[in-house]
Each structure stands twice: as C-alpha cells, then as structure tokens.
C-alpha cells in the first residue's frame, strides 16, 4: 500500500513538471509569434477595404499627422481605405513599406520572389540577420506587422509576370515600382497603363536616384519617356555597380511621400516631373517633363501594346538584377578554377591578369596577380600596356621552354575576363609578344566557392 502511494506521488510530480514545461513553452510561442502571417505564392482575389471611423487608438497613433491641415481626419480616412502594391521589397521597397505602414495605409501588397541575403542588409532595412534565407516578402511583412498591426499586409512570394500582373495590379489603387531590373519596369508600366493605375516609380544606383509618378493626371508613362529599352549590356545593376544604402533609402522615402499624397487625396506634383537626387553633391534637380505622348506605344491614341507582352524578350535581359553569364569564348580559350589550381600547384610559369577595377582589387585579390582594369585595356592606356608588356617579358624570361607564355585572365565572375581575352587576342600578334590567353571560368567567386573557401565573396 505504502509503495503504491509513493509511486502515485512520484508519477503526479512527473506530470506536474511536464505540465509546467508545456505551459512555459506555450507562453513562449504566444509571446513570439502573435500574428501568423501567411505567405502567398499566387494572385488571390481580395475583398474591398471597409470604411471605418477612426478609433480612439487610431486618433492617438496618428495624432501628429492628424494635426496637419494638409492631411486631417479626411486624409487619414482616405489613407486607411487605400491599397498599395509594392513591387520589390529591396532598398526602395523597405523604407517605402515602412512609412506607408506607419502612416496607416489600409492595405499593403508586398511582392518579391527573392530571399534575404547578407549583402542586402546595408540597404534593405526591414530585413534582419535572422531573416537570411527567408522570403523577402515575408520578412518585410513581419517587420511591417510589428510596426503597425492594423495595416493589412499581403506578402506575395512570386515573380511579377505578363500572366499575373494585370490580375494583381487591378486589385490595388496605387502601384510603387521598387524593382531592380529593366524588364520589370516596362511590365509594371504597361500593366499600370492598361489598368489605369498611378505608378510611383523610383530607382537608385551608386550615388544617384530618380523619381517620377507615371500615368497620373495626363502625365507621361514610362514608355512616353523611354520608348526603347536600353541594350542589356549598357545597364548597370546594384550588384555590379554598387549602391550606397542610404541613397535608395532616400528615394524610397520620397516614394512613400508621393504615395501618401496621392492616397490621402492631396495629389502628387511629380506627375510631369523627373526628380533626380545627386548624393555626391547632396542636390536635387527636377526636370519638367512633357505630357502623355499621343504616339506612345502603350498610353498613346493608337496604342500598339494593348495587352502584356514578353518583357524579357523586349529588353533582351532576364527580370532579375543577378549577373548575366556571358559566353563569348570557345572552350579552348577557357579554363576552370580547378585547372588553374593545378597550374599554380605545378608552379608552371604563367601570368595571372586580374582585370577588375581597383576598387574591387582593394577588397580582395590573388597575391600573384597583375592588376590592369578592363577599362584601361579597352582605352589602350599607354602606361598600362607598357606594364603588361614588361610583365609578359619578365615571365617569359623565367620560362624553361620556348613556346608562348600562358596568360590567364580573371575577374569577379568571369564576364569581363572574357572581354579582356578577346582584346588581348587582337593585340597579341601586333602589340604584345607571343602569348596564349585564356579566361578563368567563373572568376574569383568560383575560386572562393570551389578552391579556397577562405577567399571572400562580395
């Protein structure tokens, strides 16, 4: 009997401890994951936004802007009944979404198909270190929800395309182009013209930004201004050209300003204006634009574009800001990083030519490389060509055999190195001693991935 009692007591104690653990776990979950945000991977039909009077909490939250005669109660209610689609949750989309949510926009569609990476965090300020690998749309929606849980937030984890753009854009009042590539900019423009939505568009690169509201009150659309897409090879993106994080930050904030003015009913003054921000001189300039063009292919009087087309074909590039892989050389003019590793290991005489610009060489380099930027080769800069000739004859002097000197050309990802090989091939008979030139496929980033994990990636 006594045995039975102590056994039951022990079992009860176990159960109580278990209960305690479960309760603590539950409390933890409830504290961390209050609202569960659902990531959407296709376009769904949204219910219309309801008109609601301002609650006491709303009045307190928005009091500092309700005091502005330019906004007031009417403007605030207009905001709460407006929906905005943010195309791209990157350097522009993050600050834009943040201010729209803070100001009390009714519904926020957040679209991005990318995942958060470490190299995004210097400018894409809604994402966090813990969000690496997470869908950007979800990461942005989570951050926005923490800021203002009364804003309806819809994260779309999908790529905007000719198939889904109209159905999506038709459901929103205002569209903000925060994308990072040319095909998406033409797609968003055409979809906005066809759906008759104002398009608040911003862009940023390096130390510059631009802002215009397209398709708004008789003003031009993107195609009125830029009828022909630029050739793909003339377009620089942020992963190639770089960008100071605060520059898209400033442009995204300006975008938020114009969206708020349109949504609240005040109206934007950027409908026929191209605002340019020069971050080097901290200067803004505004160019007065022409109105809508009657001969425009999409918004003109006799439009030739009446439905969405293939924008990647139109622009000759993919709808991404990731690097394109060029393929300019035949196989016998290229070697892999593994093959180059063998050249180094065998201590065979050769010259390693790094054609990246100095700013990238400062980040990291292979110790034995000679650095001559591609631009110097292209411009035929005398001093640099002299340096190249000297380096070649010096390396030739160290060679045991008689044959041509192998020159291996490297850059970041293996595009510029191919262009450099083509240039050197042309020079090798006339201006340079006899050499054989090959490019190292995939460049230093492939070297880091496949040969030396200690070598930094950027």
């Amino acid at each position, binding site marked *: 009997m006594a045995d039975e009692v102590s056994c039951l007591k022990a079992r009860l104690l176990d159960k109580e401890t278990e209960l305690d653990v479960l309760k603590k776990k539950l409390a933890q979950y409830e504290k961390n994951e209050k609202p569960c945000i659902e990531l959407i991977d296709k376009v769904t039909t949204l219910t219309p936004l309801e008109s609601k009077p301002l609650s006491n909490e709303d009045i307190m939250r928005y009091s500092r802007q309700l005091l502005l005669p330019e906004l007031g109660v009417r403007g605030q209610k207009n905001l709460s009944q407006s929906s905005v689609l943010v195309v791209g949750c990157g350097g522009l*989309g993050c600050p834009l979404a943040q201010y729209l949510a803070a100001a009390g926009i009714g519904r926020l569609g957040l679209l991005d198909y990318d995942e958060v990476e470490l190299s995004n965090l210097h400018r894409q300020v809604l994402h966090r270190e813990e969000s690496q690998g997470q869908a950007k749309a979800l990461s942005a929606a989570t951050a926005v929800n923490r800021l203002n849980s009364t804003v309806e937030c819809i994260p779309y984890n999908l790529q905007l395309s000719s198939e889904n753009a109209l159905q999506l854009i038709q459901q929103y009042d205002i569209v903000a182009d*925060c994308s*990072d590539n040319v095909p998406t900019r033409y797609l968003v423009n055409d979809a906005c013209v066809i759906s008759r939505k104002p398009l608040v568009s911003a862009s*940023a690169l390096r130390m*510059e930004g*631009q802002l215009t509201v397209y398709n708004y009150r008789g003003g031009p659309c993107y195609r009125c*201004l830029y009828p022909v897409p630029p050739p793909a090879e003339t377009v620089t*993106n942020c992963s190639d050209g770089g960008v100071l994080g605060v520059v898209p930050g400033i442009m995204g904030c300006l975008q938020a300003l114009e969206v708020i003015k349109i949504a609240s009913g005040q109206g934007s003054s950027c409908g026929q204006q191209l605002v340019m921000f020069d971050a080097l001189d901290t200067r803004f300039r505004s160019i007065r*634009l022409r109105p809508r063009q009657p001969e425009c292919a999409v918004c003109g009087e006799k439009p030739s574009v009446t439905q969405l087309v293939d924008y990647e074909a139109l622009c000759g590039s993919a709808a991404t*800001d990731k690097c394109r892989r060029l393929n300019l050389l035949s196989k016998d003019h290229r070697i892999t990083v593994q093959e180059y590793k063998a050249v180094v290991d065998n201590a065979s005489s050769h010259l390693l030519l790094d054609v990246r610009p100095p700013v990238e060489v400062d980040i990291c380099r292979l110790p034995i490389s000679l650095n001559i930027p591609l631009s110097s080769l292209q411009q035929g800069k005398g001093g640099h060509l002299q340096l190249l000739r000297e380096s070649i004859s010096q390396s030739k002097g160290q060679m045991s055999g008689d044959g041509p000197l192998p020159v291996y050309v490297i850059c970041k990802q293996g595009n510029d190195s191919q262009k450099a090989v083509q240039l050197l091939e042309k020079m090798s008979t006339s201006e340079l001693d006899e050499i054989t030139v090959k490019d190292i496929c995939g460049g230093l980033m492939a070297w880091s991935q496949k040969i030396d994990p200690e070598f930094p990636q950027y």
Partner: protein
Amino acid sequence: INTYYLVTVLYFAKSAELTGHRSEVVPLPAATSSCQLWALLLELHPSLAALQDQVVLAVRQQYVALGDQALLLADGDEVAVVPPLSGG
C-alpha cells in the same frame, strides 16, 4: 551671327561613367537644335553613342525632344543628359 554661348552640360548616371565627366562647359552656337546638341555631345564623347535613344535631354531643367527646332540658349544655361536608372 556666329555667336557662341557657354553652356554647362551635366552628365548623370551612365552618361557620367561613359564620358568620365559629371559636368563640363561647352561652347554652343546660338541657334543649336536639340539634334545638333546631341550630335555635338557625341562628337565630344563618341562613347555616348551607347545611349542613343535612351536618354532624356533637358535644357534649363525642361525636357527637350530631339528635333530641329532651335533651342534658345544663353550663357550659363544648364543642359542635362539623363539616362534612366533601373536599380533598386
């Protein structure tokens, strides 16, 4: 008749990269049209040809379409060459 005016040409985005200048002072004949202006800039900087049909040209912060109409230039006028930016 052959009067020249000194205007400041501002290069933005890709055009600054291609020309190697952010701004320069260029003498222009008084009766230059926007087409002649672009041709002259191309002569100064042949690399700008890569941006043919891709730029917004502005004179005194006002858009000008490429055409034969004379721009009424004056000393100190600002001409801007603005290719689109697409990054974000």
